[in-house]
């Protein structure tokens, strides 16, 4: 296996007295799409937040391209090429659609993604570019959130439940864009509730259960049985 680009080593995370992650260890190689699955409260979002720097951890617990980033702030991590599409989209309501995209690219990292290309990927965002972000439908808002992350030209993109609360047809539309996104050599970690979809879009999966890695393996190899066991700990 080639050297991992992201190396998570015995990561713990706490919210006050509650420990959300217990020694999670995980490797991601460049260009890989990794699906993160698990029941509600298993620690998936916490793990993404820790990688993105919204939750500080032990410095050496997360290595990005060999560099310890656990103790860095989110903006410092963003500058190193990690972008996140947060759960619930969380757009900036005071900004227009276009401004939301522009601010995603405000660090000025070079790469394939420009305003033009994002608007070509999701043409509705060009059409509605002067709308306030909160005036769009849920699916369109999700496109803004993805576009905003792409505008940073990241090397690793973290996507947290991008299908949450959307109609099936909209979900398909968004997942149809995924190949175009990762075709650029982007590494991705995707949190997805729909296990069939998670398996079909990813190279490998990690299943978390109560803050611990319960199962990992290539997506084509894992069996439904194994996932069910890892999911519920039975």
């Amino acid at each position, binding site marked *: 296996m080639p050297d991992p680009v992201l190396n998570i080593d015995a990561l713990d995370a706490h919210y006050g007295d509650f420990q959300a992650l217990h020694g999670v260890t995980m490797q991601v190689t460049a260009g890989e799409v990794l699906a993160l699955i698990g029941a509600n409260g298993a620690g998936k979002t916490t793990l993404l937040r820790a990688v*993105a*720097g*919204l939750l500080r951890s032990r410095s050496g617990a997360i290595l990005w391209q060999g560099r310890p980033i656990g103790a860095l*702030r*989110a*903006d*410092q991590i*963003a*500058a190193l090429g990690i*972008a*996140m599409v*947060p759960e619930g989209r*969380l757009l*900036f*309501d*005071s*900004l227009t659609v276009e*401004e939301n995209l*522009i*601010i*995603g690219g*405000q*660090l000025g990292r070079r790469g394939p993604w420009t305003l033009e290309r994002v608007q070509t990927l999701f043409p509705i965002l060009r059409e509605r570019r002067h709308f306030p972000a909160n005036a769009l439908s849920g699916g369109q808002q999700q496109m803004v959130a993805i576009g*905003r992350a792409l505008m*940073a030209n990241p090397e690793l993109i973290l996507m947290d439940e991008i299908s949450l609360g959307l109609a099936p047809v909209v979900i398909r539309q968004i997942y149809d864009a995924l190949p175009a996104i990762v075709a650029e050599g982007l590494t991705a970690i995707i949190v997805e509730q729909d296990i069939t979809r998670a398996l079909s879009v990813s190279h490998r999966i990690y299943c978390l259960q109560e803050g611990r890695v319960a199962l990992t393996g290539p997506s084509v190899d894992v069996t439904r049985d194994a996932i069910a066991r890892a999911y519920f700990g039975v």
Partner: protein
Amino acid sequence: MEWINAIAQGVLLGGLYALFAAGLSLIFGIMRLVNIAHGDLIVLSAYVALTVTLALGLHPLLALVLVVPGMALFGYALQRLILNRAMGEDILPPLLVTFGLSVIIQNALLTGYSADPQKLDAGWIETASVQAGPLVLGVMPLLVFACAVAVIGALQWMFYRTALGRAFRATSDRQDIAQLMGLNRAHVFAMAMALCLAVTALAGVFLGIRTAFDPAGGSARLIYGFEAVIIGGLGNLWGTLAGGVILGVAQTVGATIHPGFQVLAGHLVFLAILAVRPRGLFPRREE
């Protein structure tokens, strides 16, 4: 005639109050910070200008070239080194820290300059006036009002048309997500405070030219500023200008009724507006 004159003078006075308020409005809008020391920072700016004019023999308006960037730098450092540590959900820590700052500034000024009132000497321009129909308007109040309109217009443009303004709005919306975009909250907040104190410096110099000032004069200016912000409605800079004008007119009309009513009339109008429209006259639509 007396009344029309009072209203005209009140409108112009409102320009000064809008300058007191613009910085407050900005930092409250961006970071929900209530800066109790804001008035003392206005007075501090007047003293800094006094020192600059005396030391270099500059005209107070020329001294702005030094005082404005100086106060902006001070604001950046203040936010970065002290106030950022107090920011959070709870309003009490920033309130207390700025209360402490207020007492520190007042007493430092007392130590440095004594309690004697001071004034900035702007020469002929202080007494110059122009005839506008039946009204006689001072050149200086007109200049202050024009500056207030220009400053608010510039802030408005900055807020809605520049990258910095975008960063301010994004951080104001969602601090943590803005951080994900590579915006360092500590820096964004410090930039907002720098901008706030730049406007404050302008307000301080105008205050010092208009009236005598002393180290204890900060709290009244803070209150006028806040009243203008709240009357106008939060997050609306043009509303802040309107709030300043309403407050100014209330005061000059009150003073025409009875000299002792000037400030009181302003407060009463403020409380009355609050009773009827707790979110001000022109609040931003959301929230």
